[in-house]
């Protein structure tokens, strides 16, 4: 589903450059402070991964896998939030 607005960082509320999920992912890696790490850790723990794992993957192997992966996660999360928002508005 399409989002109504640009993607906002779920941790610090910063609007990524283009408002796209992948840019938000880049913002998260670029910042890389504890709050951002913790958020990512929580999201990818299920896949036995961590923020740092994604970081090292991104840095030691050519290509862009970690960003894409995190971008998808952010996208899903944003959609979930929007859905929840709609729900609460209905009520």
């Amino acid at each position: 589903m399409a989002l109504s607005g640009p993607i906002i960082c779920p941790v610090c509320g910063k609007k990524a450059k283009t408002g796209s999920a992948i840019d938000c992912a880049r913002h998260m890696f670029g910042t890389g402070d504890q709050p951002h790490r913790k958020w990512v850790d929580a999201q990818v723990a299920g896949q036995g991964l961590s923020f740092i794992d994604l970081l090292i993957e991104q840095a030691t192997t050519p290509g862009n896998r970690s960003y894409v992966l995190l971008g998808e996660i952010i996208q899903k999360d944003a959609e979930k939030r929007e859905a929840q928002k709609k729900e609460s508005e209905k009520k």
Partner: protein
Amino acid sequence: MNKYTVINPHEPFRVLNTHVHNVDGWAKVTGRATYTFDVKLPGMLYGKILRSPHPHAKIKNIDFSKAMELDGVKAVVTGKDTLGVKQGIWRRYKDLCDEAILPVDKVRYIGEPVAAVAAVTEEIAERAIDLIEVDYEVLPAVFEPLDAIKKDAPEIHEGFERNINVTRHIEWGDVDEGFEEADYIREDWFRCGGQAHMCMETRCAVSSYTPDKKLTIYHSNQSPYYMQGLMAGVLGMREGDIRVIGPYTGGGFGGKFELDGAIFCSTILSMKCYRPVKIVFTREEDFIATKRRTPMFYYSRTGVKKDGTFCAREAKVFTNGGAYTGMGATALYLTGFFHSFPYVWKGYRYDGYRVYTNTLPSTSMRGFGAPQAMWCSEQQIEWIAADLGLDPIEMRRKNAHQEGTILPGQATIASCGIDQCFDEIKKWIKSKGKLRANRSIGISACGFMSGGIFNWFDTPYSFSSAVVTINQDGTVELHVGAQDIGQGSNTTMAIICAETLGVKVEDIKVHSGDTDHCPPDLGAWGSRQTLMTGNATKMAAEDAKKQLLEFAYAQSGLNIVYDLDIKDRWVHAVARPERGYDFGELVKKALRGKDGQKIVGRGYYTPHRKGMISPAYSYMLQGVEVEVDEETGKITLVDSMTAHDCGQPINHLGLIGQLEGAFSMAAGYGYLEYMPYEDGKLMNPNLVDYKMIRAPEMPPANIAEIDTYEPEGPYGAKEAGEGLTNPTAAAIGNALFHRFGVQMKECPIRPEMVVNALKEKAQKK
């Protein structure tokens, strides 16, 4: 010896860019100049620092009772005598304030201070140090970034998972699309060594804390204002109660604008015994316990079209941060930014990771991450040109920045003379004719910033300020916070002030290096002072000049359509130069009109709307002729030419000196200056085993100065002297590539590496 030519020179000035002696020259050639190293105060004690022999260990207990019993010992301090504040120059980011200098809990590198002693003589202090007993619990240590990020690596700082200290991401354009458009993609892995600042004056300080709770510090540094702010932070004092004096400074090169053991320990000792305490580092301490240029591991992937058009580049970098952050975070950002320089990319992406290790912390050093970036970039570009059979100079030219080039979200290039640099280097290569069989030429391009825009120090002050006061006899007092560490900023500011006010350099007295008497200024780093303090100085001089001319108008009763100006101490109507007044005479009169108040001009500068990095960028291209002994691998530099764009030159002698000096340091980084560690221990902490260029090794450093005009700089000036630390290592590598076809991926290039590379190549055949 050296050739200096000027391409498209500007209109001549009265003072600017003329042959002006360094204003501190007299003091320096007669031995009168006193450095912190020479400061001696009444009742002064001498301090020595006990240093950790372990790369990583818990401090369980320190027993200094025996040391205190030694006759002549006045104080011993340990981390327990401090507030235990972990400080850092990135004050805005608590995570990055990680260095206590006198740690309470544990040590993280060999040479880290553990305790300090103050005694009536240096020798007694040294003996006392040996009497201190420290009980360590040695911890497992890690020394290389790629080991430190492994899952099972020892944790150096609590909460820093996998020892990752800082991460930086830079990206613009569409990288993936760019790579899709590329006909040819090349990937390379590089390794860049560290480098010691090796200031001739080792780190030293004299601190004096008095019962009125005021602190005065003489300190060999690059930014008295930073020292004042950082010391206030670690001591819990008010900045205003701390006076930092930076007398003549015996070199900095990026290594003297953070707190060091000398300033911190001498202060803690002085606060304990209320006497001045002097600490001077030995050369060995200066090597093992200050900071160094950041060693880096570089992965660079570059995509280009058949015709040599650059499409996209992505770089992944791990840097050896050593035990603490220091200025490492900035180096990590700048290396990523300048790895794109001086070229246009459809898409550019950089991921940098600074990793803690149990080694000497790394930090800023002349070039600030760019020498590493250029070592990799300029060699890879040379190889790509060869792979595609293209002219390496024309391929560079085709993709180079121009006036108006936009680096999305980062910078807009206002002035850029690199195109002419290509012409000059081509001319030089042509003029060399046929080279001897054992010689070859390598080239390398680069650009650099003119001061940083970032404010991680979180200062509420303008980045630079200046105050110009005109005395009744026409002499001028110029107060600036800029720090002259040898680069000649005092002279540069005097020139700008004299040119603007229309007086002579000898009329200007420059006051700098004292937080009690000079306005705050971020100091000497990132090539910022000429542009930033220069702008503030020019603004202050213009302010003072305006006040004087207002009075001159009233005096002369001239029709207001006439313009008044001042040149060579003569205040006159521009249209009728013969009509005017002597500068000094006029000032005397003007003071009466101001109820006796001096004419005071104020100026300040803080960059605005100039992107993320810097207000302006310098450009340069360098060619180096290299001789190699094929059998022994010994490298000799024979000749060099640098085409250089620094906007409008201001301090002629200073400019030449800075360019020659930067070249010698850059050449050293390329093939001599080497910092090998074994189990966290630096193996050559002395000037016998640490090799630097000496007079016989230094080749001619010819210069072609391309004069452009930088709208943001004073009189059109921008950076000079730091950027030239960047290209040389790659130029040497490229010379070897052209002669032997070998690709050197680790610097410095030591002779043994050359021999091995040649062997390898022979075996492949």
